[in-house]
C-alpha cells in the first residue's frame, strides 16, 4: 500500500500534491514538503544503504545534516550528484535516487563479507596492510577505492552553470530557527541590513518539528509571522535552502544557496546553485544543536534513529517511523519523542533510561501517559538484520560499567535514542572562537568570540525555548547596536522553558561481553568506527585526540563527525580515565556540509577561467590562421602555418624570410613604463646595472635589471623621450612584477627621488619589421621621418607619421637584423599592421610568431629572461659583466661581490653545436663531460634553448655550463634515452657576430 506509514493528518506536507519518485529503481510516492528520507519512511523503507567498511545494512538515522547512513546518489548522467543525504534532499516529481555503497544491490551486498571478516580489518588497516611494496600502491588504491566507493562523480562536463556573488550585511544571521528568527527580527527592526540564511526550504528550525507554543500559538505559526515581517522589510534578505558553510577572517562568510536541485523541471536559463561571499559587520550564529546517539552494542541497525528525528518524522512529516518503539535515553528531554509517537499511535514498548533515578517533567508525563520507564537500564544488544526486531534490555551496575541482572527482550521495529545534545559550534569554531566544555551539558559550547560574532540559542548551549527566544532577540539587538544602529528593546515572546536535563553521562552502554568481543558498539556510523577501534588506537599508543581521529578515521567523511566527535571523546575519556575537557577537541574546518565543485568555480570556468588579453591586431592574426601561445594572460601568435605546414615547416619558413627579406612581429605585449621627474636618470642608474646619465633625448639603451640577490630579473630597452622623461620596456610576462618592484623602491627606499612611474603598456601597439628590406618599407610609409642610416642610427628613435597616423619608431633589434619597431596608439594598431602587410607584399613580408622570434634571437645569442635565466643567473654568468657599471651603485651590486658569485666554475652562458647538424637537443637536457653507462653522472649544465636554424643550416642550442665561458671548443654530451648527443661548446653568438646587419 502506498505510504502505509503516513499518518492520517498533520505534518507540513501538501497532501494535494503527491510526488512520484524512484529509489534503487523502485517507484514510490510521497508528498510535496517531504524529504527523500521522510518519503521513504512513509513507504516503510528503512534500509537505505550499506556502511562504508563492513557493508552493514543501514537505515535513516536522523532528519537533517548530521545523517551518516542515508547517503544517496541523485539523478543520472552529467548532472548526477553523489553522497547527498536523503534527509536533506527535497522530494520532487521524477526524482531518482540510489544507494551509494552497495554491490551488486542494496538487499544483497557482497561486501558484507567484510563484516564477517572484521577481525582482519582493524582500525589503521590501510596503514598496516598497504605499506609495502611501494610499487603496489596503484593496485591497492584501485581496490580500496572500489571497495570503499562513496558515490560516483559524472565523467561528462557539468551541464549546469553556477552563480557566484558578493554581498554585504550589517548583520548576518546563520540559521532561522527560533533564535535566528528572533535575532533577525531584532536586527531588522533597528534598520540594519540583514541577511538571514537557513539550510532548509522552510524557516522555523526546531519549531517545525516540535509542539511548542510561542505567545499562545503554535511555534510554527509564530515562525510564519516572523517570516512575513522580515519579508516585508526591504533591508532583509532571506535565503532559504542556503547553508552557511564557511566562516573566515574579517567576518567573511561563505553561503551555498541551492536554486534548482529541488525542482522537477529545472530551468535551463537559471543557475543551479549560487555561492555567496558575504562580508558582514556582525554575525549572529543560531545554528541549533544536533542530538547525540548512544553507543551500545549493534546500535547501527535500520530502525535505530535519533529520538529527535523520530519526533520530526511524526510531527513535521506525519510519518510513523515504526509500529512499536523503544525509547533509549540518558535524559529527560527525549521523552517528548515518546509522547508524540504515542500520540501518533505508535506503541511504546518501553522507555529504557540510563539514569538510575529517571526523573523530570517529561519523564513524569510519560509515566502518566502509561509508558513503562526502565530506570537504570541499558540496551545490551539488538537483533534484526535489515531492520531492528528486538532489543535486550538489562539493569546496569551502579557505576554503569557492567550489566547487573538478567536481560529482558523487547520486540520493536524502532529504537529512538538520545544521548544528549551537541551545540552546532562549527561556525563559531571556524571563526577561531574558543570552545569550553560544559560539564552539565557534557559537551562543548562557545566560549570567547574572536571575531564580531555571537551565538544564540541551542548552538550556545541554551535549550529552554523561552531562553532561546530571549537570547536570539538579545543577540540581534546587540549585533545591530554594534553595527551602529539604535535599538528599541522588544518584549520577549512567551514560551515554555523546559530543558532536556536532567541527564546521566554514560558514554558507553555495557553489553554482556567486553567491547570488541561480541557485536559492535558504533561511535562513528559513516566510517564504521567502533568503541573497540578507539580502544585499539589507545592501546597502540595513539592517545592524542588528533591521533585517535586520524588512526581510526572517526569524525572524517562527508558528515565530519557531527554525531560522533563528542561520543568518541567520551569513550576515550572513559578508557583513559581522563576528563573530556583535558582531552581537547579536534578542529572544525569549512565546509560545514559538502559543497559542489561547480559552486566553488562559479563563473570562473571555461573562457572566463582567467582573463584572456588580446592585442589590437589579434583579429588579423586569427584570420591569418595563427596558432597562439599564452604569454602571461596574453595570446600571442606563436607561428602562422600555411596550408600543409606543421610548426617546424612554418618556423623554418618564417625564420628564413625574416633574414632574407622582411618579417613582421606583433610586439605589442612588451611592458612599457613611463618615467618622469627630475630624478629619473638617477632612478634608472639605481635600478639598472649600467649607466644612464649620458643618454640623450632621441637615444635608446639596453638595460639589465637585477634583484637584490644579484640575479637577473628583467631586461629591455629604455628610450629617453625628453628631458627627465623616459620610456622603459620590460619583458611581456614581467611587466606587472617590474612595475611593482620599481614602485616599492621608489616608495619605501628612495622617497626622496622625484620620479613618477605610469604604466603605458596598453597605450601603444607595436609592429616590429625586421630584415634587409625593413628600411625600404618604412620609407614608403612615412614622409616626415628621415630613415637614412646616418639620420636614424641603430639604438635611436624618431617621432613622425607612419601609415597616416602618429608613430614613434625605434630602431632596435631583437632579431639581429635591420629592424624598426613602429609604435602607434593602440586604437591604430590594426590599421598599422594591415598597412604594413599590404605595402610589404612586394617584399614577401612574412608575419612571424614568438617561436621564430626565439630562433632569430637565439641565433644572435640574445637571452630571454626566464628561459636562459631562472633566478640563479648573474650578469657575469651571462658574459655581460661589461654592463655592470663600476662607477655607481645599483640594486644587486653588493651581492655580485660575494665570493660564490665570483666562482669561475658557476654555470655560464654558452652556445652548443651538436656534432650531427641535423640534431636538435631537447630544452632542459642535462649535459655531462664524462659519459657513463648509466646515471648518476656528473652534470655540468643544461640546455636552455634549442632550435633548428634554416639560416645556420643546422641545429644549435644555448646552454648554461659550469665554467662555460672558458670552455669554448670543448666537448659536452647530452645523454638521452637510446643515444648520447655529442656537442661542442661555442660562443652563444652564431649569426652576424660583428653586428653588421643590425647596424646596416
Amino acid at each position, binding site marked *: 500500500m502506498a505510504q502505509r506509514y503516513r499518518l492520517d493528518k498533520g505534518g507540513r506536507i501538501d497532501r494535494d500534491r503527491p510526488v512520484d519518485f524512484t529509489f534503487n529503481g523502485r517507484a514510490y510516492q510521497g508528498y510535496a514538503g517531504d524529504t527523500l528520507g521522510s518519503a521513504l519512511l512513509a513507504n516503510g523503507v528503512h534500509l537505505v544503504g550499506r556502511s562504508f567498511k563492513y557493508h552493514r545494512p543501514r537505515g535513516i538515522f536522523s532528519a537533517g545534516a548530521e545523517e551518516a547512513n542515508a547517503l544517496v546518489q541523485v539523478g543520472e548522467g552529467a548532472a548526477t550528484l553523489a553522497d547527498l543525504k536523503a534527509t536533506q534532499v527535497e522530494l520532487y516529481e521524477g526524482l531518482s535516487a540510489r544507494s551509494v555503497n552497495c554491490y551488486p544491490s542494496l538487499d544483497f551486498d557482497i561486501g558484507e563479507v567484510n563484516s564477517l571478516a572484521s577481525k582482519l580489518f582493524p582500525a589503521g588497516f590501510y596503514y598496516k596492510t598497504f605499506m609495502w611494496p611501494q610499487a603496489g600502491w596503484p593496485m591497492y588504491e584501485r581496490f580500496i577505492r572500489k571497495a570503499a566507493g562513496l558515490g560516483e562523480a559524472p565523467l561528462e562536463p557539468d551541464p549546469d552553470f553556477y552563480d557566484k556573488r558578493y554581498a554585504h550585511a550589517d548583520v548576518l544571521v546563520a540559521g532561522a530557527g527560533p533564535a535566528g528568527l528572533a535575532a533577525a527580527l531584532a536586527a531588522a527592526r533597528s534598520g540594519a541590513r540583514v541577511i538571514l540564511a537557513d539550510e532548509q526550504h522552510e524557516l522555523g528550525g526546531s519549531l517545525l518539528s516540535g509542539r511548542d507554543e510561542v505567545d499562545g500559538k503554535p511555534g510554527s505559526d509564530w515562525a510564519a509571522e516572523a517570516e512575513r515581517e522580515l519579508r516585508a522589510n526591504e533591508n532583509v534578505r532571506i535565503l532559504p535552502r542556503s547553508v552557511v558553510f564557511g566562516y573566515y577572517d574579517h567576518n567573511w562568510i561563505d553561503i551555498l544557496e541551492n536554486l534548482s536541485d529541488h525542482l522537477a523541471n529545472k530551468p535551463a536559463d537559471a543557475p543551479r546553485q549560487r555561492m555567496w561571499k558575504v562580508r558582514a559587520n556582525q554575525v549572529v550564529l543560531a545554528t541549533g544543536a544536533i542530538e547525540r546517539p548512544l553507543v551500545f552494542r549493534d546500535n547501527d541497525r535500520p530502525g535505530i534513529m535519533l529520538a529527535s528525528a523520530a519526533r520530526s518524522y511524526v510531527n513535521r512529516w506525519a510519518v510513523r517511523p515504526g509500529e512499536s518503539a523503544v525509547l533509549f535515553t540518558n535524559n529527560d528531554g527525549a521523552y517528548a519523542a515518546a509522547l508524540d509517537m504515542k500520540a501518533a499511535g505508535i506503541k511504546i514498548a518501553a522507555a529504557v533510561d540510563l539514569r538510575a533515578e529517571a526523573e523530570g517533567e517529561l519523564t513524569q508525563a510519560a509515566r502518566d501517559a502509561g509508558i513503562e520507564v526502565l530506570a537504570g537500564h541499558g540496551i545490551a544488544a539488538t537483533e534484526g538484520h535489515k531492520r531492528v526486531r528486538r532489543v535486550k534490555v538489562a539493569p546496569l551496575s551502579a557505576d554503569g560499567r557492567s550489566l547487573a541482572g538478567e536481560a529482558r527482550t523487547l520486540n520493536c521495529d524502532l529504537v529512538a535514542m538520545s544521548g544528549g545534545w551537541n551545540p552546532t559550534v562549527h561556525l563559531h569554531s571556524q571563526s577561531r572562537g574558543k570552545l569550553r566544555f560544559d560539564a552539565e551539558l557534557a559537551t562543548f559550547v562557545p566560549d570567547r568570540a574572536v571575531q564580531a560574532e555571537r551565538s544564540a540559542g541551542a548552538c550556545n548551549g541554551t535549550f529552554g525555548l523561552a531562553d532561546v527566544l530571549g537570547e536570539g532577540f538579545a543577540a540581534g539587538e546587540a549585533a545591530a547596536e554594534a553595527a551602529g544602529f539604535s535599538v528599541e528593546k522588544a518584549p520577549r515572546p512567551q514560551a515554555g522553558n523546559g530543558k532536556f536535563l536532567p541527564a546521566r553521562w554514560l558514554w558507553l552502554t555495557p553489553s554482556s561481553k567486553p567491547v570488541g568481543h561480541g557485536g559492535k558498539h558504533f561511535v562513528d556510523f559513516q566510517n564504521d568506527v567502533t568503541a573497540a577501534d578507539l580502544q585499539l588506537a589507545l592501546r597502540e599508543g595513539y592517545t592524542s585526540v588528533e591521533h585517535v581521529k586520524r588512526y581510526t578515521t572517526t569524525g572524517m567523511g562527508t558528515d565530519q563527525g557531527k554525531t560522533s566527535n563528542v561520543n568518541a571523546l567520551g569513550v576515550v575519556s572513559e578508557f583513559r580515565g581522563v576528563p573530556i575537557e583535558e582531552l581537547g577537541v579536534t578542529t572544525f574546518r569549512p565546509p560545514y556540509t559538502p559543497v559542489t565543485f561547480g559552486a566553488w568555480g562559479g563563473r570562473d570556468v571555461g573562457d572566463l577561467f582567467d582573463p584572456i588579453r588580446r*592585442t589590437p591586431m589579434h583579429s588579423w592574426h586569427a584570420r591569418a590562421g595563427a596558432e597562439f601561445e599564452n604569454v602571461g594572460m596574453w595570446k600571442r601568435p606563436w607561428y602562422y602555418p600555411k596550408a600543409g605546414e606543421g610548426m617546424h615547416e612554418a618556423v623554418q619558413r618564417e625564420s628564413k624570410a625574416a633574414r632574407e627579406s622582411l618579417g613582421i612581429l606583433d610586439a605589442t605585449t612588451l611592458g612599457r613604463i613611463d618615467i618622469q621627474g627630475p630624478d629619473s636618470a638617477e632612478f634608472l642608474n639605481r635600478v639598472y646595472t649600467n649607466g644612464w646619465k649620458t643618454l640623450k633625448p632621441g637615444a635608446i639603451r639596453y638595460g639589465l635589471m637585477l634583484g637584490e640577490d644579484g640575479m637577473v630579473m628583467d631586461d629591455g630597452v629604455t628610450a629617453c623621450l625628453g628631458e627627465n622623461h623616459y620610456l622603459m620596456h620590460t619583458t611581456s610576462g614581467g611587466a606587472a612584477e617590474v612595475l611593482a618592484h620599481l614602485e616599492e623602491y621608489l616608495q619605501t627606499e628612495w622617497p626622496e627621488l622625484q620620479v613618477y612611474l*605610469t604604466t603605458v603598456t596598453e597605450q601603444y601597439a607595436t609592429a616590429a619589421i625586421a630584415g634587409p628590406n625593413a628600411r625600404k618599407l618604412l620609407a614608403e610609409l612615412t614622409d616626415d621621418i628621415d630613415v637614412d642610416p646616418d639620420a636614424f642610427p641603430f639604438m635611436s628613435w624618431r617621432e613622425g607619421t607612419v601609415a597616416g597616423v602618429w608613430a614613434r619608431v625605434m630602431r632596435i633589434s631583437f632579431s639581429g637584423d635591420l629592424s624598426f619597431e613602429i609604435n602607434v596608439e593602440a*586604437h591604430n594598431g590594426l590599421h598599422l599592421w594591415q598597412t604594413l602587410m599590404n605595402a610589404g607584399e612586394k617584399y614577401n613580408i612574412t608575419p612571424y610568431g614568438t617561436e621564430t622570434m626565439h630562433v632569430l634571437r637565439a641565433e644572435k645569442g640574445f637571452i630571454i629572461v626566464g628561459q636562459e635565466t631562472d633566478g640563479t643567473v648573474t650578469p657575469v654568468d651571462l658574459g655581460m659583466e661589461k654592463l655592470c657599471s663600476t662607477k655607481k651603485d645599483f640594486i644587486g651590486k653588493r651581492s655580485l661581490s660575494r665570493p660564490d658569485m665570483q666562482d669561475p666554475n658557476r654555470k655560464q652562458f654558452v652556445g652548443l653545436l651538436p656534432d650531427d647538424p641535423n640534431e636538435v637537443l631537447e630544452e632542459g637536457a642535462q649535459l655531462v663531460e664524462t659519459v657513463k653507462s648509466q646515471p648518476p653522472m656528473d652534470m655540468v649544465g643544461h640546455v636552455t634553448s634549442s632550435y633548428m636554424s634554416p639560416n645556420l643550416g643546422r641545429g644549435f642550442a644555448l646552454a648554461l655550463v659550469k665554467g662555460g665561458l672558458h670552455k669554448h671548443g670543448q666537448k659536452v654530451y647530452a645523454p638521452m634515452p637510446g643515444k648520447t648527443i655529442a656537442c661542442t661548446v661555442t660562443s652563444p653568438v652564431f649569426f652576424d657576430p660583428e653586428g653588421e646587419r643590425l647596424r646596416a
Partner: protein
Amino acid sequence: MPETTSYRQSPLAPLGLAGQAASGLNGAGIGVAEPDFRVLLDLRVELDKQPGAQDAVEKVLGLRLPETANTATGNAERHALWLGPNEWQIVIHDSRPEAGREWTAKLREALQGIFCAVVDVSNAQAILRVTGPAAREVLERAVPLDMHAGKFQPGEVKQTVFGRHCGVTLHLLDDAPTFDIYCRRSFAEYVHAYLKDCARGACEDFAVLEG
C-alpha cells in the same frame, strides 16, 4: 598627411557591438555601451607640496582636482577622478585622434616647473558604460565592493578587482544607475563577457546599447 579618425578601432570593436545595439533597455535589467573615444590622462602631483598645481589644472581644464578620496569633480564634458593621494584620471570628451597628445601637451605646459607627471592613457583603457535598474545587482557578482545604493552614490569613484585579476575603476554617474567602468584595454572583452555572465547569474536580460 592629416590624421583620420576612420583608422581607429575601439577596444570593444572586435565584438561588433554596434551591430547588435538595441534602441534601449527594452525591459532588460542592464545595458552595456562603449562610449565614443575620449581623452584619458593620468596626472600625478603632490598638491600639498606643489601649491600652484590646482590653479594650473583649473586654468586648462576648468575644474579642480578632487581631494576627497574616491570622488570625482567636473561636469558633463570633463571629469577628474580621484585615484590616489597624488593621482587622478582626467576624462575629457574630445574624440579627435590627436586630442590625447594635445591635452597632454597643454597640461604639461601649464604645469611647467611643477614636479608632476602627465601621461596620455587614452588608448590604454577601455570604457564600458553600464546602466539599468539591475546594474548594482549584476555588478555585485563581479566586484567585492558594497554596491548598495546607500554605500556607492553618484559622483563616487572606486577602484577594485573585477572578476579574476582585472583592476577596474568604477565611476557612478547617476541614479539610473549608470556606471562607467574603466579597465585596461586588453581586458575589455573579458569584462564584457564577465558582465554578461553575471547578468545570466542574476537572471537579468542583458542589452547592448548604442555607444
